[in-house]
């Protein structure tokens, strides 16, 4: 066993670097700096601050704010220290454990993947489902009002009275059978050629003229509105905010401190991560919207026929794409809705029997 070593002694007051001879003893280290008196450092007064990784010198400090320092470049010093004084234990690093570290790192990597997946697939949706219903409706309404000001400015809204009456009737029919809701639903038709509809938090639904003109019956319009109302009722926008923020935090935890180009890459990952959540929200709005149609005794074919037509026109008219880009029509989506409609045994009651829908749909 080797007990005599060479090292560097720093006194903690000047930048002078003095070589020193070191002797390992049972209760402490005996240090003799060049041209200085021999001193003994008891093990219990020492702490090791460097020398945990290969290529790193061993650094022992003694004292409070301005410690004296002993540096030894050979890691074998630590092995000798543990042999000379086995009782010091984990106060000093044991280089023999470095091999085990690689194994633990691999285990940790597997742990990272498992934990991140659990948080993404289960933790974040659960958190959003827990928090979203507790957000006061008045907050959502306030945010929604600001958003609606941008999406549907008053000058762009269709003010036709018959159209407004028709839309109100659709909302009334859809919401009548359900339990009372904390939201006041308002459907605005906006004079833009987009074939799209969207829900804004707080009960606002925006339908663009392009979509209105594509609907052949009031039931088709009701199918679109039912879908959007479900977004509002299930607070999908509020959930999306929570999920997006949580996904961002998760990615931050996975990648460490990120700046520059990687930050943009992360934004892409975040968007991709959110995509899965939004697809699930769309599915939920579909099935719940269909249930809403059935409960209101509206012809369920209205919902499916509209989606079917939009899907067929995909590619033919680029305008239709906007609806599909925010409402991806997975192959099974339409199938599921059709199955729900087929299983229904009720008889539909007509919607807006007095009107000719083809006229109403042109009122914008």
């Amino acid at each position, binding site marked *: 066993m080797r007990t005599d070593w060479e090292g*560097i002694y*720093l*006194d*903690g*007051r*000047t*930048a*002078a*670097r003095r070589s020193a001879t070191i002797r390992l003893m049972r209760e402490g280290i005996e240090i003799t700096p060049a041209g200085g008196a021999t001193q003994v450092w008891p093990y219990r007064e020492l702490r090791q*601050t*460097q020398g945990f*990784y*290969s*290529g*790193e*010198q061993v*650094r022992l400090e003694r004292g409070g*704010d*301005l*410690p*004296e*320092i002993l*540096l030894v470049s050979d890691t074998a010093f630590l092995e000798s220290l543990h042999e000379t004084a086995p009782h010091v234990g984990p106060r000093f690093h044991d280089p023999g454990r470095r091999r085990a*570290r*690689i194994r*633990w*790192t691999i285990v*940790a*990597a597997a*742990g*990272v993947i498992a*934990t*991140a997946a659990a*948080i993404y697939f289960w933790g974040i949706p659960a958190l959003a489902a827990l928090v979203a219903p507790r957000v006061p409706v*008045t*907050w959502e*309404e*306030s*945010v929604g009002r*600001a958003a609606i000001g941008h999406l549907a400015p008053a000058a762009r809204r269709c003010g036709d009275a018959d159209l407004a009456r028709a839309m109100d009737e659709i909302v009334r029919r859809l919401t009548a059978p359900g339990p009372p809701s904390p939201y006041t639903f308002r459907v605005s038709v906006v004079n833009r050629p987009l074939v799209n509809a969207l829900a804004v938090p707080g009960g606002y639904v925006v339908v663009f003229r392009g979509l209105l003109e594509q609907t052949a019956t009031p039931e088709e319009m009701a199918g679109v509105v039912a879908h959007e109302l479900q977004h509002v009722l299930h607070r999908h926008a509020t959930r999306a905010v929570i999920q997006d923020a949580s996904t961002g*935090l998760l990615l931050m*935890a*996975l*990648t*460490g*401190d*990120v*700046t520059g*180009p*990687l930050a943009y*890459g*992360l934004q892409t*990952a975040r968007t991709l991560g959110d995509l899965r959540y939004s697809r699930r929200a769309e599915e939920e709005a579909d099935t719940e919207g269909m249930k809403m149609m059935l409960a209101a005794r509206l012809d369920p074919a209205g919902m499916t026929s509209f989606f079917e037509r939009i899907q067929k026109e995909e590619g033919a008219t680029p305008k239709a794409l906007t609806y599909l880009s925010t409402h991806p029509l997975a192959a099974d989506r339409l199938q599921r809705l059709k199955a729900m409609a087929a299983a229904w045994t009720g008889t539909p009651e007509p919607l807006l029997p007095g009107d000719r829908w083809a006229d109403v749909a042109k009122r914008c």
Partner: protein
Amino acid sequence: MFHGIGGTLFGIHVVNTLLILVTLGIYYFWAKTRVRQYLAGQTEMELDRFAYHGTAKELLLGTLKAVVVFGLPVLLMNFVRDVLDVPIAMKVIAGVISGSLIFVFFPVAVVGARRYRLSRMSWRGIRFSFRGRVWEMIKIFILGTFLTGVTLGLYYPFFLVDRQHFLVSHSYFGSERFGFTGRGRELFGPFVVAILLTLPTLGLIWVWYVARKRRFFWDHTNLGSARFSCHVTGGALLGLWLVNAVLLVCTVGIAWPWVRVRNINFTYRNLALVGPLDLARIEQQAQKAGSTGEGLSGFFDSGFDLA
């Protein structure tokens, strides 16, 4: 000289990430401290390594303080501004308060981070320190932002140099003070050239500007009679960044530790301390430094390291 290895840093990073995930983020401060300890311990100058003395508890407390002083008030004001149903005057007042807090936050964070980081760094047992006043920095920021706005951005290089001058000339190694001799007008030329050539070079000129700025900052920095010399070139910097970007994109960010090591290696390879450093004259001087600013800049990373 830097001895760090990307693989080791990656190992540290993997274990850190697991602990961050299972502690829902609280381990972040321990993780950050561990990485800094490693990086400092792998940095060598004149045969001796640097050391990082910061503790995770300090970082955690600093961040908590920052959240209470800045984070919560800003959140609250933004909430009043965007969500609550209150008169428009209230919303305007809330917006102004939130905006001013964010504005003041930057100088406070830059100074705080620098004070904390330098005071927790040592070489040969001698601590670094930063003794500038936050208020001075806030004044530099207010003046700089105002003049930059009024001159449509042309004042910006002068603002940058003012900031750098303040940050460097209040930094100490033990009892020895760092000095900065750069003038804003020296950076003004390259800045104007970069603006003029932005379109013809599709923005690539800015890489050369960054290299020029780094050389300018370091070449005008001295410690006692020793001065720094930096010879980074735009081409080398562009090469470094391109390879880094490819590494990060191809590995979806997993190569991050290697990129970090590459960046540090690049910095030290292009940096030298020229001239005699009278070490015998330098004495230890203990300074107190809180970690609030450090916690603040953790979010924005507006602080930067000297060593």
